[in-house]
């Protein structure tokens, strides 16, 4: 009951966000590249459902396209984390105790030791503010998360007898990693993936908020919040709407992750910080 409820609510929220993002490719209520300064700062109304911003742009349309930005940044960042972290983790586990394992794990520790936000700020400050650099900055910090998770999941699998059986069948370590280990840590990765995905959305919002994320004219929820900040006192909807959008997406993903975990394997432990 609890399971299906988490899955259902999370799935619904995620669906709404993803649908809005996809729909925005073909349709938004208004063209947000057009400024309509005389109609700026309208409260939510029948014409502009979520009101208009300080340039008179339709907030509903911006939220839709902002969803696209958030999702894209988070997906690619998690993709980087998984794409590099999972093979590293598999590799480290397959050669446990060896110098490769040692280097990979110490390197991971080192990345963990850096305050991620500060480094993300540094990276974007050094390389210039852009969505791509935000992705890289967020992605780098996803690598150790997935590497550690994969390694610890894989390590316990390497002790299992079916892996020994595969080795007796003469299969090489990389092959066993791909054939036996990876599918068995997949659940773990999927669940952690949704969590990292939601953290990615939060991180993107944070970076955009300090002006280091996606650049205008591409709308981003974080930047909408930053733009809204000086106007909260007389136009609170400017801050409320993108804030709630972030909460919706993150909440949806977290619930989905919890639901998936319960569905796939209740023993999975996710790391959140």
């Amino acid at each position, binding site marked *: 009951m609890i399971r299906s409820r988490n899955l259902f609510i999370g799935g619904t929220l995620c669906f709404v966000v993803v649908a809005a993002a996809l729909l925005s490719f073909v349709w938004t209520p208004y063209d947000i590249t057009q400024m309509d300064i005389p109609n700026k700062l309208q409260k939510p109304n029948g014409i502009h459902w979520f009101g208009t911003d300080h340039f008179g742009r339709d907030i509903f349309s911006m939220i839709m396209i902002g969803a696209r930005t958030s999702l894209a940044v988070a997906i690619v960042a998690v993709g980087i984390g998984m794409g590099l972290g999972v093979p590293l983790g598999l590799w480290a586990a397959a050669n446990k105790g060896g110098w490769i394992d040692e280097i990979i794990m110490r390197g991971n520790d080192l990345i963990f030791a850096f305050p991620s936000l500060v480094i993300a700020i540094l990276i974007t400050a050094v390389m210039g503010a852009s969505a791509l650099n935000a992705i890289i900055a967020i992605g780098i910090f996803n690598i150790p998360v997935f590497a550690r998770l994969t390694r610890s999941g894989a390590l316990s699998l390497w002790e299992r007898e*079916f892996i020994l059986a595969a080795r007796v069948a003469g299969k090489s370590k990389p092959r066993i990693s791909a054939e036996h280990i990876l599918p*068995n840590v997949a659940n773990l990765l999927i669940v952690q993936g949704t969590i990292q995905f939601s953290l990615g959305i939060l991180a993107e919002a944070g970076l955009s908020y300090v002006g280091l994320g996606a650049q205008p004219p591409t709308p981003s929820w974080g930047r909408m919040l930053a733009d809204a900040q000086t106007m909260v006192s007389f136009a609170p909807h400017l801050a409320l709407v993108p804030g709630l959008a972030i909460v919706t997406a993150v909440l949806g993903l977290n619930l989905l992750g919890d639901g998936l975990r319960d569905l796939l394997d209740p023993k999975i432990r996710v790391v959140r910080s």
Partner: protein
Amino acid sequence: MSLLTVDNLSLSIGDFSILRDVSFSIEPGEIVAVTGESGSGKSMTAFSVMQLLPERAKSTGQIRLEGKDLLSLSEPQLCAIRGNDIGMVFQEPMTALNPVKTIGAQVMETILIHTDMTPAQAEEQARDMLTRVGLPPDRFPLSRYPHELSGGQRQRVVIAMAIALRPKLLIADEPTTALDVTTQAQILDLLKELVAEFGMGLMMITHDLAVVSDMADRIIVMRHGEIVEQGETRALFADMKHPYTRALFEASGHQVDLPDAPDGPDPILQVTNAIRDYPLPRTRLFAPREHHRAVNDITFTIHHGERVGLVGESGCGKSTLTRAILGLEPLQSGSITAFGHTVGPAMNPALRSGLQVVFQDPYGSFNPRHKVARIVTEPFHLLPDPPTGTARDTAIAEALTAVGLKPEDAQKYIHEFSGGQRQRIAIARALIIRPELIIFDEAVSALDVSIRAQILDLIADLSRSHNLSYLFISHDLSVVRTVTDRVLVMKSGEIVEQGDTKEVFSNPQHPYTQTLIAAAPVLPQVGKGAA
């Protein structure tokens, strides 16, 4: 009045009925053994007496301790009884103790909750109790933590905790399953002494009939949540009324019909002065690495068609040796040759295909995501041109039939099989490429007695039909005795004795072998005739 009387106890958890109409009683000073196969409801019966049942459990009937009906008591009243009137010892000594508290504190706690002793007095009593269970404080200070003790010592702490207040009833749920035979014998002796000394009633749960046969006054046999038979030990063994009891007993002492070993003098496996070290974690950053020698200078030979046993306590290096023979891990010195070629991590597939293995764990030996067909054909990887299409199907069908399964089973997933069936699949996987030597590493240790008997028969049959040689590893002497021609006895990485199985068992030479054989519980011969 009996000490404990259980009347028509029925228990259900959610929609599942776990216990049905269980009735028995225990007198003061009496040892009652509850036995039966895994899942038969032994532990649930014990937890019902403790009233420590899972949340959704509902029970009916009566459980009376000295006339008080435990089912009608409130939770605080029950708390006052637990630990005071009833003590309990659990199976797993490794996890039954709180890892972050000293053993002294944990034993004292029982005393402090139930009496108004001062901590100093309680400590004194804890000291006494620990001495009583064989942990004198001058050698085992109260300030030790559980991880600083061996399994058997921890089990003693758990017992000390349970008997600290001399409860009227002691429940021991498989207290020795996790221990070595020698340690097991010590713990059982200790329990017997305590019962005699304190006049406690002991409810002793075990699935090992041999364990109970020489200590229990009475035996209760359970199956599917019901008591099928109970009675005074000697009488029960002499005259087993229920067919299940008989089957259980017969399976426990099962002897297989092993064909004669062919006189093939050609050796197929030669282990010469093998040494295997594990590096220990560094103690200091740049300290030289220390090593743990798990296999120390082992030499033996297996000839064509020979069935060799390897016995020894947990941790003596049996599995390590297995992995070295399979060429999964390198040796630090010495050599292993199979069929005249050196074995090692870099050995060629053809050589590897002559050696296969069956592991202990029927649940962990398979990738749960693969179908049986894929699992059993995994060793085909070793063949230069593996069969495909119908040839492959035929090979699968043959292998499955050989282990008593149906060819259709190839399309099922592993979770659709019982433990015994899984172990058959594991054997099928080992057989499919027709190896000359199979290593059984504790291949039957996790199985229930009746299933174990079937698998042992299967192994004997295969030895006949496939002319197999095998190395059979186990810590269970009775099993090794029936399925091997020759036996190796291993202790701390070394082979201390080897020779003809019958010879070694009837006339052990090495002191270690002697203690091992002496400690192993044996079934009384009385039942033999009845079976």
